[in-house]
Structure formats: C-alpha cells, structure tokens
C-alpha cells in the first residue's frame, strides 16, 4: 500500500515537473548580459528570467522575439518566450544598448 502511494507521488511529481516549462536565467551586470548567448530548445515555450544586478533599471528588448520588458534596479523579471523556430534571436538592453547585447539560440 505504502509503495503504491509512494509510486503515485513520484508519478505525480514527475508529471508536474514535465509540465513545468524549461527555465533559463540571464544576468545583467555592468550593463552586460551573462551569458551573452543562451542555447534553448526550439518548438517549446520557455521561461526566461532576467536578473538585473546593476543599480539602474534596464529594458530587456528583442525585435526578433517580439518582447520588451522593464527590469528594475537589482530586480528580476520573467519573460515568456516561444515556442521558437530554430534560429538565432538577438536581444539587448535598450537603456545601455552599446554594451548590453545578447542572443538566444534555439535548437
């Protein structure tokens, strides 16, 4: 009986984990994205966390991804993306576009 319950819990947990979208994090420091390039799966929705460790606000923006979102000083935001076709999707920080450049690579 206990085994059955344990099995059930494991199964449910596994299902939940599968339903949970793939999550990626990119950090902003000194107005640069780290890592500057992220490889993400194509054909599925992904959850991108942008973690701004700078003392000033930034706007995460991408024409290719059709996304724009302000991320406050020392704050984190969630950006839902995709499902993407395979390819390269540049993004940038609009407030410091000379240094804050990055890209998602969907494979």
């Amino acid at each position: 009986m206990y085994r059955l319950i344990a099995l059930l819990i494991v199964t449910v947990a596994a299902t939940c984990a599968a339903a949970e979208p793939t999550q990626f994090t990119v950090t902003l420091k000194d107005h640069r994205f780290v890592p500057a390039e992220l490889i993400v799966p194509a054909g599925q929705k992904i959850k991108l966390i942008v973690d701004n460790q700078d003392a000033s606000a930034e706007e995460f923006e991408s024409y290719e991804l059709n996304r724009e979102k302000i991320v406050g000083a020392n704050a984190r935001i969630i950006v839902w993306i995709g499902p993407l076709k395979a390819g390269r999707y540049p993004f940038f920080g609009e407030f410091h576009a000379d240094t804050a450049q990055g890209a998602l690579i969907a494979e």
Partner: protein
Amino acid sequence: MLATALLVFREVLEAALIISIVMAATRGIHRRGRFVSSGIALGVLGAVLVAGFASRIADAVEGTGQELLNATVLLAAVLMLAWHAIWMARHGRELSAQMQAVGAEVSTGSRPLAALLVVVALAVLREGSEIVLFLFGIGTGESSVLAMLLGGGLGLVGGIVVGFGLYFGLLRIPMRHFFSASNWMILLLAAGMASHAAHYLIQADWLPALGAAIWDSSMLLSDHSLVGQALHTLIGYDARPAGMQLIFYVSTALLIYTGMQKCNRAQA
C-alpha cells in the same frame, strides 16, 4: 548624449503621434486645448508614479504586473477611442457642416473630449514612465547630468516637432473629408493598440500566441526603423506579429467599423 536624445525621441514620438491624431480629431471643438493639456499633465504625473513603483508593479501577479498594467492601459485607451469614433460617426457630419457655416469652434459638450483626455493621459503615462526610469538610471550612473538633460531635451523637442508636423499635415485634409479621415485614423490607432495589448498578454503567458510570428516583414520594414516605429503607433504595424495579435487587431477594427456604420445609418 546622442543615445539619450534618440531614446527619449522614440518614446516621445509615440505619445506625440497619438496626441496629434487626438488634436486633429477634435478640430474645431470648443475647449479641446484645455482637455488635451490636462491629459498630458495627468499622464506625466502618472508616469512618475508608475516609474516610482516599477519594481513593485513588476513583481505583482507572479511577475506579470508590468504586462498586465500595460495591457489594461492599452485596452482602456481602445475603449475610449472606439467610443469616440462611434460618437463621431453620428455627429461628425453635423459638426463639419456647422463648422463650415460659422467657421469657428463649436460646442459639443465635453463627453467625447473626456474620453480623449483619458487616451492622451494613458499614452503619456506609458511612454513617460520609461523615460523617467531611463533618465533616473543615467542620473545614478557616472555620465554627466548636463549631457543627460541636453539629450533628453533634444529628444523631447524632436518628438514634439514630428507630432506638430503630423497635426498640420492632417489639417490640410479638406473639411468635407476631414472627420471621416480622422475617424479612420482613430480606428486604426485603436486596432493597433489592441494588438499591442495582446502582445503583452502573450508575453505574460495569459493568452496563447497562436503562432509566435505569423509573418516576418522585418526585411522590408523593421520595427526598429523610425518609419516602422511611427507606423507601429499609427496603424499597429508589427514586423513579426503573433496570431493572437492579428485576431485582436481585426476584431477591434471590425467592431468599431460596425459601430460606426450602425450609428451612421441610425442617424440617416
């Protein structure tokens, strides 16, 4: 300084274009100047507030507060524009006849003006809060405050000049066609805002994208170019629209168009 000027210019441009259309659409209506300037003032106040609470707004509703706020603001503006367009379809003809007869401002009551005051305030709020956050960010950085103010001022003036350009261009439309033309512009403006609202709801994962990019016309006209950006504001141009955005765009345009036709017929 130039980077600051360009960024401020881009944000101001969007609000300025919307205000120009509102100014054109209320041509000849008594007391419109006061309504539009109140709208701008309220918008600036709102922009400072939104910028001040930016982080708290962003964290709200599981991190989707910013998208929900933007979508709500846009949809509220769509409602006001729709109401104005339908109201004008009913009263536009008598209005232009009256204006041609007396050649002066006419009093229509303040109801349509109040709706457009909201549109102006919301446009300034949305674009203005980004400018405040951006300038504040530079202010806390190492760049000089003078360069920031100069750049900001330059961008502001540039945006306003383009807005005036559009306004005076619209005024050249002959009086007979003027209100139907400005009404069409309001319709397209509203449809574009609805599509932009859908864009935010998709980004927040509240709506499915129904195709992340139905087409890609960025090779022809990029969203980043000034023309692309102006068209984005004026008619909702998007180089890579999601399916849901198209649905919002077409439904809004159809609903307003139907409303305009119905009111026109009811009057005739």
